[in-house]
C-alpha cells in the first residue's frame, strides 16, 4: 500500500491520466465562462478544475507534483481570488452603492453580457480551485520526516500549500 502510493499505478493508467486531466481542465474553464447562459456557474466549474489535478496525483504517485509549483503558490492564488471578489464588490461604489452592476449589459445570449456576472464567476472558480487542491494535498500527500532530535518527530508537508 505504501509503495503503491509512492510509485503510482501501471503505465497505461499514467499515460491516459495525462491526456484526460488536460481535457477535464478545459471543460472546467468552459463551465465557468458560460455560467450565465447555461446551468453551471463558478462553484461547479472550480470543483471540476480541481478534480483534474487530483487525477494526476493519484495515478502518478505522491511526489509527481512536488517540485513543480513554488512554495506557497496555492495559498496566494486562494487569497487572490477572494480579494478579487471583494474588489469587484467595492467597484460598485462608482455607480452609487455596494455591489451595483455597473458594466454594460449587452445582448442576452452573448458571452460578454450581463455586466459583472462573468467576472464574479471567474474569481469564485479560481478561489475554489486553489482551496480544494491545497486541502486535498494536506490530507493525503503529507510526508512524515523522522529527525533524530531530542524533541521527537518533526512533521513536514511535501507539497506547496
Amino acid at each position, binding site marked *: 500500500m505504501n509503495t503503491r502510493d509512492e510509485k503510482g499505478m501501471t503505465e497505461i493508467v499514467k499515460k491516459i491520466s495525462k491526456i484526460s486531466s488536460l481535457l477535464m481542465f478545459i471543460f472546467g474553464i468552459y463551465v465557468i465562462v458560460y455560467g450565465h447562459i447555461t446551468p453551471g456557474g463558478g462553484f461547479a466549474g472550480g470543483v471540476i478544475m480541481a478534480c483534474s489535478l487530483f487525477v494526476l496525483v493519484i495515478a502518478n504517485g505522491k511526489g509527481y507534483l512536488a517540485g513543480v509549483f513554488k512554495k506557497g503558490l496555492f495559498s496566494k492564488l486562494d487569497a487572490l481570488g477572494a480579494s478579487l471578489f471583494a474588489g469587484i464588490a467595492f467597484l460598485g461604489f462608482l455607480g452609487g452603492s455596494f455591489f451595483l452592476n455597473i458594466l454594460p449589459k449587452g445582448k442576452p445570449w452573448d458571452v460578454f453580457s450581463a455586466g459583472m456576472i462573468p467576472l464574479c464567476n471567474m474569481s469564485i472558480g479560481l478561489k475554489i480551485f486553489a482551496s480544494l487542491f491545497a486541502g486535498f494535498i494536506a490530507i493525503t500527500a503529507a510526508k512524515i520526516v523522522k529527525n533524530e532530535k531530542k*524533541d521527537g518527530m518533526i512533521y513536514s508537508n511535501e507539497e506547496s500549500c
Partner: protein
Amino acid sequence: MELYIILIIMIIGSLVAIKTRNILSSILSIGLVGLLLCVAFLYLGAPDIAITQLVVEVVVLIVMLRATINKNIIIIDKTLCFPAIAMVVFIIGFILIFFHRAISDLPEFGRPLMPVSGEYLLSGLEKTGAANIVASIILDFRAYDTLGEATVIFVAIAGAVVLLRKKGKI
C-alpha cells in the same frame, strides 16, 4: 411516482451505510445515496444543483477513501447499551409528533407560494441580462450571501490545512 422509489432506495442505502461493519462498504453506500440524490434533483427541475452535487460527491468519496483505507483499523463497531438506544428512539418518536403538526402548515406539494420569486422571474432577464435566472440571483440580486459563503469556505479550508501541518512534538 419515480421520486418516491428513489427516496425509498436512498433510505435503505443510508441504513446499510451506518449498520455494516466494513468501512469500505459503508463509504460506497454513501456514494450510492449521493448519486441517487443527483438523479432526484434532475426530476425536481434543478439542473444547476445536479451538476454541483455530482462533482462534490465524487470529491467526498475520493477524500474519505484516501484517508481511511491505508490505515490498520480493527473493526470493532460498538454502540451504546440498550437502555440508551431505547431513550434515543423515544426522543425521535417525540420529534416526529411535532413534525406532523409543523408540516400541515406548509403549502401543498406541487403548488409553491413563491412570494419573492415572481418578481425575479418576470424581470430577471431585462434587469441583469443573464439567461440563467439562478446565476443572476446568486450574483446580482443576492450577492451578500455569496460573499459570506466565500468567507466560510476560506476559513474552513484554512483550518484544515493548518491542523495537518504541525512541527514539533505531537
